[in-house]
């Protein structure tokens, strides 16, 4: 896939040349050449390589439009034929459709090209380092690496290209008692010293997990959420929370925030970032991404508006993709130094990760979920014991609202390890959060 950009540009030209009178197109390209190595008990459980490329082609004519996703082979003549066949299918489809009253096409001929040419890590060397570091330990997780490509072109001259090398090691270390600590290491260039440092941190936490487990009763507790735990919470908010369409349809979990009935803490600022994060500077719909302030001092400040929503609800479109979800969410830093977290917590829970969150009453902002991985009971600013998994059930307007006491001054870039369908480029820049009350129920 060394010349993926020129292959994509040639495909876009083929589509352009094949268009009939009055037709327009958009073309999104997504490809990767990935190596996946899966570990269990510090040994390789499963390993493989995946080379895949797909395009999503939209054909527009007379206000009618339809989309088709096509898997590409990487062989130009074959792919040219697959796109030609796809174009025919779309022509047949849109002939059967009514005009879309909410169609809004981006017509600006923008250009964005970003190519990171870093060499991929040598997986044999990485494997050796992981095995050496994990010797005698129970490590489980996955190493994913290789180039990712995203491209966009349309009838109006827009062209975007994003090529990035990357790796992501996402792992856990398990204590013999079943407790575990989770860590990750992601980037463009593998640095043995950086990996060793992160591994040593995880190993140190593992030692705390060997102490007898504390069992808590349901009730209200002070709690510190690490950036990894907070990522799960904001991940839930991202599902429709800031979506212009969900808000208009009264289906957003942040409906009461945007309608003025509820407030988040004044400490909270949330932005969708177009630059400085990992996602491409453009989306599948062909819109260059821009910064959007979503929440400012706990008050709603903006929403993510897909062009179709803009047309339907008479709003200004911004960088949003069709799902109107943030891709690069940044929460503003606070003033609590990381080194002072345990002292500020005093007595309560240090929650390393949360897991399997869902809404128990979405309109009320009430969510539930489980603690997972390194979660500790803290007394008088000192870690006392690991905790068994506990369920919380509480409103975001409480634990991130009136009871939010502080955010850390240091933030962590949380890189998505999701590989559903393809390796993802989402990320979130988050502090840790100290709350005076989190309700545990089971």
């Amino acid at each position, binding site marked *: 896939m060394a010349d993926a950009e020129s292959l994509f540009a040639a495909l876009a030209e083929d589509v352009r040349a094949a268009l009939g009178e009055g037709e327009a197109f958009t073309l999104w390209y997504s490809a990767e050449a990935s190596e996946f190595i899966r570990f269990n008990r510090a040994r390789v459980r499963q390993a493989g390589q995946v080379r895949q490329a797909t395009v999503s082609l939209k054909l527009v004519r007379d206000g009618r439009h339809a989309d088709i996703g096509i898997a590409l*082979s990487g*062989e130009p003549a074959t792919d040219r034929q697959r796109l030609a066949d796809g174009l025919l299918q779309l022509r047949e489809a849109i002939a059967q459709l009514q005009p879309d009253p909410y169609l809004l096409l981006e017509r600006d001929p923008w250009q964005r090209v970003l190519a990171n040419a870093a060499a991929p890590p040598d997986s044999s060397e990485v*494997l050796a380092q992981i095995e050496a570091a994990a010797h005698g330990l129970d490590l489980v997780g996955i190493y994913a690496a290789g180039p990712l490509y995203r491209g966009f072109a349309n009838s109006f001259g827009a062209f975007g290209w994003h090529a990035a090398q990357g790796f992501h090691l996402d792992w856990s270390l398990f204590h013999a008692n079943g407790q575990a600590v989770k860590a990750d290491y992601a980037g463009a260039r593998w640095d043995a010293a950086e990996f060793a440092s992160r591994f040593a941190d995880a190993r140190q936490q593992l030692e705390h997990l060997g102490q007898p487990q504390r069992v808590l009763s349901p009730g209200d507790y002070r709690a510190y959420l690490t950036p990894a735990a907070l990522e799960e919470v904001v991940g839930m908010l991202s599902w429709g929370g800031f979506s212009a369409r969900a808000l208009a349809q009264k289906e957003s979990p942040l409906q009461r925030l945007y309608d003025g009935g509820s407030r988040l803490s004044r400490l909270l600022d949330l932005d969708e970032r177009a630059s400085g994060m990992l996602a491409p500077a453009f989306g599948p719909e062909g819109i260059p991404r821009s910064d959007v302030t979503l929440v400012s001092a706990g008050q709603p400040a903006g929403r993510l508006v897909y062009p179709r929503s803009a047309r339907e609800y008479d709003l200004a479109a911004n960088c949003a993709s069709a799902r109107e979800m943030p891709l690069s969410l940044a929460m503003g830093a606070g003033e609590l130094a990381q080194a002072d977290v345990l002292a500020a917590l005093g007595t309560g829970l240090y929650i390393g990760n949360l897991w399997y969150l869902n809404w*128990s009453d979405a309109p009320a902002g009430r969510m539930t979920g489980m603690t997972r991985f390194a979660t500790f009971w803290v007394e008088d600013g000192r870690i006392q014991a690991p905790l068994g998994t506990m369920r919380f059930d509480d409103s975001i307007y409480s634990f991130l609202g009136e009871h939010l006491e502080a955010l850390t001054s240091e933030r962590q870039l949380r890189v998505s390890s999701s590989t559903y369908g393809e390796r993802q480029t989402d990320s979130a820049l988050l502090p840790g959060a100290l709350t005076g009350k989190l309700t545990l129920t089971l």
Partner: protein
Amino acid sequence: MFDRARQHFAALSTRAGFHSLRLVRQTGEHCMLRRGIAEPPSLTQDMGAMLSVRLDGVEAYAATSDLSLAGLQGALDSAEALARRIAAHGLVDLRGLEPPTGHARYESPGLHGPFPGLAERFALLAEVSASVPADSRLVNWVVYLDQQRHEQLYLNSAGAEQWQALRFVYPGISVTAFDGSDSQTRSFGGFGSGQQGGAEVMARLGFAGAASRVADEALQLLLAPNAPSGATDLLLMPDQMMLQIHESIGHPLELDRILGDERNYAGTSFIGLEDFGRYQYGSPLLNISFDPGIPEELASYGHDDEGQPAQKEFLIRDGLLLRPLGGALSQWRSGLPGVANSRACNWNRPPIDRMANLNLEPGDRTMAQLVGGIERGILMSSNRSWSIDDARNKFQFGCEWGRLIEDGELKGVVKNPNYRGVSANFWRSLAAVGDASTFEVHGTPYCGKGEPNQVVRVGHASPACVFRQVEVFGGAA
């Protein structure tokens, strides 16, 4: 494409002792109307192949969408090279694991029957959408119809050749009502109730006539009080039993979880290897089967994705845990009997232990008897929220629809019905199981698991069931 793949496979060369090819073509069509306006249809055409090798006791794979002979040979070479690199690091020594050799063909029911064209589908959706009544409180309604086809050819160097062609149909409706503060959504079918087949799936599920009832129920929920809190008897309808079976029986019985593969992502299990044949999972009324034999159920198939023939097996009988959900490799690793459930979501992901059709066998009570046997309780239907710990023990689930039960009779509607419990105790409180008249087939295409991540289709069929003294609660609003 598939005939050419057979020829290419015969021409491939490798020094590995065993190799296989799994070629997949998936197509799909998604049609949807929102508030009566058609959204642009979305079509998919996906195809690719996974080549796997076993060499020096380890296995490696390479997946490619280049289906030429050179493309397949290149992938096979990559898999072989990777296997050599990891040979000294493997968790499991596969030498001695016998490969499958069977020849078979399997097709969905109604695969070749007619299915409405695009224009007809949109006309049908418009008709369904138009039956949502005009009411200013109904702020959103969506009707949709998805059709997906999955064709797969599995070949291996031991002589196996298995062909499967499946079609999945998902008709769905969702209606949201809003009163200025609270919103309530009621839904029908969709991605919780898909089935294999053709146009008959829509008729079987009653899609055409459902929208007005769904809308009416959304409005009823808006006016309803919150579900009460406290311990009470719980009657779960089949569309919620599906989720209950899935999360608190299916996932904990996946053998790869028990063997630790999933501890970094999907989690572990409160069940251990030593529990099979001994552990009383539920009351004597609990009978759970792995059943690939209900043709319309989403995960009915002839062979799993590593070539093992699928047949019905009881995982739990009379409440006693008998066997896990583990494919041939996990059976090899654990020494336990299993089922043919080694499955992959597509050509670009390797097979792992997955749920397939996991069903609760019918009992002997009619719906009237189930309700009549409850003095104080609540009926819950249609899952909308699910959360469970990584060992699949502490759970909390929420439903769209609740009805109080008093003195053996159904009473008023309640909104935001939720319940929580612990798997290890919950199934022991199973007090009554509905008969075949209450039995329904459900399923979802969105069961997530694995590293790299995969979503697969799973089917769950169940009667309505009664559980004693479960902790229930309502919403905060």
